[in-house]
C-alpha cells in the first residue's frame, strides 16, 4: 500500500513521456541545383476551376467587440473566410501548384515582394502564394497593435509585434512549405495562410474560382489543390509543347 503512490507517479511519468509528440521543425535540404530555364517557344499553360458541391456552409460573423477600433473599421459585419463559395458555385482561396513533375532546378524568386496587409483587423489576402526566397512584406494599416505569428513547421516559426505606423515587416521563407497559418493572438479571429512554393507555378483561386499557371514547360505533372478546411486534392495531366491543359477540382461540404 505504501508504494502505491510512488508506483502511480512513475507510471504516469512514463505514460506522459510516451504520449508527448515532438514538434521540432524539419529542416529543408538545400541542394545545389542547376538554374531553371524555360524555353518560351515550348511553354504552355494549365488552367482549371475549383468547384464546390453540396450545401454552401454559413460562415459565422466575427465578433470584434474586444477591440472597438477593429469594429469601427467596417460598415457591415464581417464573416469568417474559412469557406467562401463564389456566386458561380466555385471555391475561393484554394492554393493550386505543381506538386510534382518539374525537373529539379533552382528557380529565381521574383524581385517584387508579396504583400500581406492587416486592414480592419483582417488579413488581406486570406491565402497568399509566395516563392521560396521571395520577400514577404507585412503591413499594418490598422490603428491598433498586432502580433504576427508564423505557425510554420518546416521554416523557422516566429512571432513578432507590429504596432500601428510601424515599419513594414519583411520576411523570407527559405524552404518550400504548403501551407501554414499566419495568426494574430491579439485578435484571435485573424488567420491567413501562406504557401511557399519552390517554383513560380502556383495560383490562388479568386472570385470566379478559376486559376491559370502560365509559362509551364511541357511535361507530365501532378497538380495539387490545397484548402484550409477541406484539405488536399491532386490531379495529373500532361502538357504538350506550346499547349494548354485543364484540370478541375471539386470539394464538397
Amino acid at each position, binding site marked *: 500500500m505504501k508504494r502505491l503512490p510512488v508506483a502511480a507517479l512513475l507510471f504516469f511519468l512514463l505514460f506522459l513521456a510516451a504520449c508527448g509528440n515532438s514538434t521540432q521543425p524539419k529542416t529543408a535540404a538545400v541542394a545545389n541545383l542547376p538554374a531553371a530555364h524555360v524555353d518560351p517557344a515550348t511553354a504552355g499553360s494549365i488552367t482549371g476551376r475549383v468547384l464546390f458541391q453540396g450545401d454552401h456552409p454559413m460562415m459565422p460573423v466575427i465578433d470584434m467587440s474586444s477591440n472597438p477600433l477593429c469594429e469601427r473599421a467596417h460598415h457591415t459585419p464581417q464573416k469568417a473566410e474559412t469557406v467562401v463559395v463564389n456566386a458561380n458555385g466555385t471555391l475561393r482561396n484554394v492554393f493550386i501548384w505543381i506538386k510534382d513533375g518539374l525537373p529539379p532546378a533552382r528557380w529565381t524568386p521574383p524581385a517584387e515582394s508579396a504583400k500581406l496587409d492587416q486592414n480592419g483587423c483582417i488579413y488581406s489576402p486570406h491565402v497568399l502564394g509566395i516563392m521560396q526566397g521571395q520577400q514577404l512584406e507585412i503591413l499594418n494599416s490598422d490603428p491598433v497593435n498586432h502580433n504576427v505569428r508564423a505557425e510554420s513547421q518546416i521554416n523557422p516559426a516566429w512571432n513578432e*509585434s507590429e504596432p500601428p505606423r510601424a515599419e513594414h515587416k519583411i520576411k523570407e521563407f527559405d524552404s518550400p512549405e504548403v501551407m501554414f497559418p499566419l495568426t494574430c493572438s491579439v485578435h*484571435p479571429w485573424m488567420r491567413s495562410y501562406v504557401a511557399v512554393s519552390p517554383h513560380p507555378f502556383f495560383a490562388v483561386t479568386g472570385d470566379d474560382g478559376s486559376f491559370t499557371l502560365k509559362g509551364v514547360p511541357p511535361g507530365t505533372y501532378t497538380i495539387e489543390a490545397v484548402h484550409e478546411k477541406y484539405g488536399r486534392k491532386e490531379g495529373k495531366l500532361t502538357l504538350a509543347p506550346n499547349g494548354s491543359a485543364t484540370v478541375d477540382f471539386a470539394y464538397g461540404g
Partner: protein
Amino acid sequence: MAVNNEYKPGLHRWSILLAFCTLLLVVAGGLVTSRDAGLSVPDWPLSYGKLMPPMEGGILYEHGHRMVATTVGLLTIVSVIWLFRSERRRWLRWLGVIALIAVIVQGVLGGLTVLLLLPWWISTSHACLAQLFFSTTVAMALFTSRWWLRGPVPVEEDPKFPIRSLSLLAPICVLCQLALGAAARHKAIGSIYHISASPIVTGVILWVSLRILLHYAQNRELRLASTTLPGITFCQVFLGIAAYMSRIAYADAVQPMPLMVTFTVFHVAVGALTMAASVVLAILVHRNVPAPARAFADTRVSAVS
C-alpha cells in the same frame, strides 16, 4: 516581531490573501490559454517594450496575467520575510522559501513559453507548477491558522483500513490528471487521455474519502476534508463535461467563444481547488493519524507514565 509559535492573525490573513491571489492567477492563466492570447505579447519580460502596453484584444489577457503574476510574486516575497521574522517553525519558513523558488521558476517558465512560441512541455510544466504553487499557498494558509496551532486530534490507524499512504494517492492522481489536461490544452496529446483518466481519478478520490468517512469519521477535521474533496470533484466533473461539450459545439468557430472560455476557465480553477483540497486532506490525515511506529511509541510513553 516576536518569534514564537503563537497564532499570528496578520500572517494568516496574508497567507489567505496570497492563496486567493494565486487562484486569481490560475484563472488569469486559464483565460490566456482559452482566449488563444498566449503569444499576443511577443516579448518578455517587457510587453511591447513597455511596462504597460495598450490593453486591447489578447494583450489584455496576456499582460493582465503578467500583472497578477507580479503581484503574487511580491506577496510571496513579503510572506517569506514575514515567516522568517516571526515564525518559529523552521519547516514552515523553508516551505515559504520553496514557494518563493516555485514562483520565480514559474515566472521564468512563463517567459520561456512566450519566447519559444509555446512548446508543449514548457507550457504544460507552467500549468502544472501553477497548480502545485497554489496548493503550497493553501497549505501555508492552513499551517498559519489558529485551527492548526491548536494541535491534532489523533486517531489510531485501523490496520484493516490503512489511510496514511492511501491519502497520498489522491493528490498524486489529481496532479497527473491536471498534467494530462494541461498537455491536452497545449496540444501535446489528445483530450481522450484526460477524459479517460477522469473516472479513475474520481474513483480514487471517492475511495479515499469514503474510507475516511466510514472508518475515521470521529475526527472532525478529517470528516470535513473528506466531504469537501468529493464535493469539489463532482463540480469539476460537471465542468469538465460542459467544457468538452462546448468545445465540440464551437469546433468550427473562428475565435474563442465566451461559453467555451467560461466553462474551460472554471474547469481549470476548480481543478486547482480539487488539487488543493486533496493536498489538505493528505496533510490532515498525516497530522491526525500517526504512523504506526509513532503510535506505538506514544502508547509506550503513556503506559510508562
